């Protein structure tokens, strides 16, 4: 078998540099106070009450989004696999396109829909306003992760076995199906988490102060703490992806997929 050609190494080195240089530069920048190196910028961030507020708000939104999208998509994907296998291509087509819905279009649409009278005003003032939009954004990630998990199990046999033993639908879903697809569900949850923790477009246009809008705000006022925040945010993305790797190779090739909202 041939070794890897030299041109191959060349491209990988170029790619590696492209990946690491901006990170190194940001890290260096984030450790500077004037001309001296220090952890000052990080301390400044962690001591800022606004950091805590926005961070936890984004965290809460991420959890809410994960719960809603799991509740919505697990039964949907289950049903599609069990009863409507032909629709799978259609659903897959819809979801293979994380970019069909640019976040900017989504928020414009949502703002428009929310103009109707029937939306209670208490809901409009709450940041949870963003959750339906985030659920749409998370759909492709969730779908790929869940779809892979469902493909790996024999949905029909499991369902029939469970029902012949007297379990109802909800019991089958909860006690039989869910444990079998949990790796996929967790992978989808991690991707959704990374997505919501970084989502700027919708939050800023709907005028809510989430973690990413806070990063932007700091970026306009203080350069070094902004670099520190960038590193923190990068760390979150790493954690989420490491989380996916930890839950196993189950999710397969579709799992670590394509970035979303920018």
């Amino acid at each position, binding site marked *: 078998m041939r070794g890897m050609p030299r041109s191959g190494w060349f491209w990988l080195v170029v790619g590696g540099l492209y990946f690491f240089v901006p990170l190194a530069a940001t890290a260096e920048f984030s450790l500077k106070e004037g001309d001296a190196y220090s952890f000052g910028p990080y301390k400044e961030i962690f001591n800022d009450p606004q950091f805590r507020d926005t961070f936890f708000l984004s965290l809460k939104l991420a959890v809410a989004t994960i719960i809603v999208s799991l509740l919505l998509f697990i039964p949907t994907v289950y049903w599609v696999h069990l009863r409507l296998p032909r629709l799978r291509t259609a659903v897959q087509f819809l979801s293979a396109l994380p970019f069909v819905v640019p976040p900017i279009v989504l928020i414009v649409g949502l703002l428009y*829909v929310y103009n109707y009278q029937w939306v209670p005003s208490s809901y409009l003032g709450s940041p949870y306003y963003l959750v339906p939009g985030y659920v749409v954004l998370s759909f492709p990630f969730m779908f790929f992760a869940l779809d892979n998990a469902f493909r790996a199990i024999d949905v029909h046999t499991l369902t029939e076995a469970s029902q012949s033993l007297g379990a109802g639908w909800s019991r089958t879903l909860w006690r039989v199906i869910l444990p079998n697809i949990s790796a996929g569900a967790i992978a989808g949850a991690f991707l959704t988490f990374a997505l919501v923790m970084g989502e700027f*477009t919708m939050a800023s246009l709907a005028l809510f102060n989430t973690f990413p809008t806070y990063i932007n705000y700091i970026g306009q006022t203080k350069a070094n703490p902004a670099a520190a925040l960038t590193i923190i945010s990068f760390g979150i993305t790493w954690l989420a992806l490491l989380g996916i790797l930890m839950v196993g190779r189950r999710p397969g090739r579709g799992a670590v997929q394509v970035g979303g909202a*920018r």
Partner: protein
Amino acid sequence: MPAGALLIGAFRTQEGEFTTRFFKNIFKGTSLDAYVKSVEISLITAALGGLLGFLMAYAALSAGAPRFIRPVLTTFSGVAANFGGVPLAFAFISTLGTVGLATRALDKLGLNPYDHGFTLFGFWGLVVTYLYFQIPLMILVIAPAIDGLKTEWRESASNLGATSTQYWRYVGLPVLLPSILGSMVLLFGGSFAAYATAYALTSGHIGLVPLKIGELISGNVLSDPHQAYALAFGMVIVISVAMVIYYVLDRRASRWRRTAQ
């Protein structure tokens, strides 16, 4: 009904509202400029990102590559592809901004990019920044197609006396081309939709469609929500066209996937 159709219906409601006046405005003046610029930047980053991503993925996944490279590459690509938005802009300001690390290094070599007309906060700066997520995205989407390229094909080609160039010309490229182009269409969509990075990098001063929509909706001096709906609808049209192209290419690509499985 699949949840997808229902959810996508949620952002379609805007369609009912516009009069043709707003829609016609799309084709005039700054709006048209914004579309042209958005499409340009998306085409360039999709082509460059697609090409570089393919070369890297092929280098790492081809038969001769050491085994450890594959998981490393896909993990790093996963991180980089998901790392976007505002932090990405700041990372590049630290790197290629006026006092960025790379700028200073190049300056010492006498090659300060800012002396040669480059600025991170303009068109090409945005291209360089977008490539940070476009290249890894390409690596992730193209990897299955490269895996589908059978080593037997290459071996039979060389057994029949084909040179490497001939192999690529008559076997490799025809098989891979639909996948490569299809992936590039996805990349196109990705940078067409991007808002946060461009916003943070240029403070909203570069005239891309998403930024223009943001301006119109966020209630500044220029506020005109209905024009924003029309612009957003225009984006949906562009993306839909791209998706039709993607669908056609994907069908062609899947011919080979079926035999490969």
